[in-house]
């Protein structure tokens, strides 16, 4: 049955494009167990002559059964059937291999199976496109994007960084992996929350995953940020200690309580979180934006020990695959390993554990630094070190940064939210509130 399908499929390859279609669905030499020499022969003839061999030659050389013919009209059907067969076979092989390896430990088996099966799914979904032929279709897509841009002001999810939102007009895009790097206590987690709040206020569903911070702490930070953006100032330490909310706060909380667009997830009991669990969470909650507070506590997969470089590489590319496969924008923090007295300089690639792999996997990399505070204004500087869809910004973008009181906002010339030179805050309503303060 299988050998017959292989023979019919290869015999039906009438053009070089047909042959390329095999590769485009992920079918290769290894998938032909009976007619592998015939496949190799097709490759060699196409490479040497630029065309497929005659059916007669194929039939005589490989002694094809009488029932096998070259019917160009059958090719697409046969290709579809063969792909199903290949996927079924890979599934079987994956399950067998995993059962053999982890059969004694059901938890490890489940973890490993989920990971392996997801990679099969990704492969089958990875599609190629006939680039020249589809050019006309792309014109429609571009026009559609332009209409969206005109209507919404930007493509993707708002970032809260004017360079992306207003200049380039490309926010966080589904399928993108975005890295946030900074030294200890620079403000990575706060900035991550800020990105989340900006997106959430525009109605985007946010999944915040923290492998180290408890849910309670994350939610207190969320409250402080959201209140500040609604011109209500509260010290986040007060929230940890206990605080009697004002009527305005209760009113705001009541209005926000009607939405359910922000999910906070803390690490599992052992403090580790696997990529497969992340994928499960994304599948379950279907967020538009996934925020992961720290790469170091993520793990690529259970069942085998890994070197750090392997782990960072696997997690980085695993997250990228996850972003593409599940069509979600992902932002992840990664820590730089130096705490020097040169806080104005963004951490270098060499200071990030296996930064090369991390940077390669990311579509954008934002590095954080903290210029000296001389005018009573804490500042966080965000430099855009890598931006696949645009130019990097090495000079940095400054944020007014008083996260303890929920204030994080980009500093623009003439910004009214900047506190005075004496460092004293002005009254509430100074301009940190934003027009879109509620989703």
């Amino acid at each position, binding site marked *: 049955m299988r050998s017959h399908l292989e023979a019919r499929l290869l015999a039906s390859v009438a053009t070089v494009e047909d042959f390329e279609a095999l590769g485009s669905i992920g079918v290769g030499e290894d998938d032909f167990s009976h007619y592998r020499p015939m496949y190799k022969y097709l490759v060699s003839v196409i490479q040497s002559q630029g065309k497929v061999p005659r059916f007669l030659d194929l039939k005589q050389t490989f002694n094809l059964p009488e029932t096998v013919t070259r019917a160009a009209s059958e090719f697409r059907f046969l290709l579809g059937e063969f792909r199903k067969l290949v996927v079924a076979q890979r599934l079987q092989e994956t399950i067998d291999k995993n059962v053999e390896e982890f059969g004694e430990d059901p938890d490890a088996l489940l973890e490993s199976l989920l990971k392996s099966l997801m990679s099969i799914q990704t492969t089958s979904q990875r599609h190629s496109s006939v680039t020249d032929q589809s050019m006309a279709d792309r014109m429609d897509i571009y026009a559609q994007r332009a209409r969206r841009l005109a209507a919404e002001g930007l493509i993707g999810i708002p970032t809260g960084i004017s360079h992306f939102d207003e200049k380039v007009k490309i926010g966080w895009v589904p399928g993108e992996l975005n890295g946030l790097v900074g030294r200890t206590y620079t403000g990575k987690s706060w900035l991550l929350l800020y990105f989340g709040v900006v997106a959430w206020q525009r109605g985007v569903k946010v999944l915040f995953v923290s492998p180290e911070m408890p849910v309670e702490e994350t939610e207190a930070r969320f409250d402080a940020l959201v209140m500040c953006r609604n011109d209500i100032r509260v010290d986040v330490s007060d929230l940890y200690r206990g605080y009697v909310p004002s009527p305005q706060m209760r009113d705001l909380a009541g209005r926000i309580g009607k939405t359910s667009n922000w999910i906070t997830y803390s690490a599992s009991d052992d403090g580790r979180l696997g990529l497969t669990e992340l994928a499960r969470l994304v599948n379950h909650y279907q967020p538009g934006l996934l925020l992961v507070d720290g790469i170091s506590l993520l793990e690529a997969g259970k069942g085998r020990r890994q070197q750090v470089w392997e782990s960072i590489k696997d997690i980085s590319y695993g997250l990228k695959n996850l972003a593409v496969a599940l069509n979600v924008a992902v932002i992840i923090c990664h820590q730089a390993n130096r705490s020097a*007295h040169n806080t104005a300089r963004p951490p270098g690639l060499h200071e990030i554990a296996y930064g090369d792999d991390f940077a390669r996997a990311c579509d954008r990399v934002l590095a954080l630094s903290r210029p000296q505070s001389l005018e009573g204004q804490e500042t966080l500087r965000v430099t855009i070190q*890598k931006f696949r869809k645009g130019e990097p910004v090495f000079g*940095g973008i400054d944020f007014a940064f008083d996260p303890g009181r929920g204030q994080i906002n980009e500093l623009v010339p003439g910004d009214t939210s900047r506190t005075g030179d004496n460092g004293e805050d002005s009254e509430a309503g100074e301009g940190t509130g934003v027009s879109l303060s509620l989703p």
Partner: protein
Amino acid sequence: MRMRTQVGRSLQRGLYCRRLRLRGSRMNLGQFWQKVCLGRFGAFTTGGDVRRINELAEANGENQMRYAIQQYAKEMPSPSVKDFESWLAGQELPDEAVCAAYLTEDPEIVRMAEKLETLRGAWFPSAETEDEIHELESRLKGLLL
């Protein structure tokens, strides 16, 4: 568009800049260490400590050392030259010009130095970024060193 570093008019006058430089350099580093120890920690220093600090200052740059002592004093509850040396070995301090700029505490000069440090942190600097770095370096060195 190329970034233009805005430096105040007064800053561009050499006299003012020399005054800035002098303000930070009235005492040698040994004396500065003594002052920091006495003023901040109430601890006494020995002649050997002062000599060692002066030696370190000769080996590194003077501004860098002064800046390092300042930072060390902010962090450490009790000073010792030995501890300072091991602390220093683990630091990656800014270069002489940037340290000199930080020591002036002049907002415009500090801003300029920070801009320079930020640009130096570029992972894949473009030719334009390199030019900007060079320009800022020359200006800071011209002003402060």
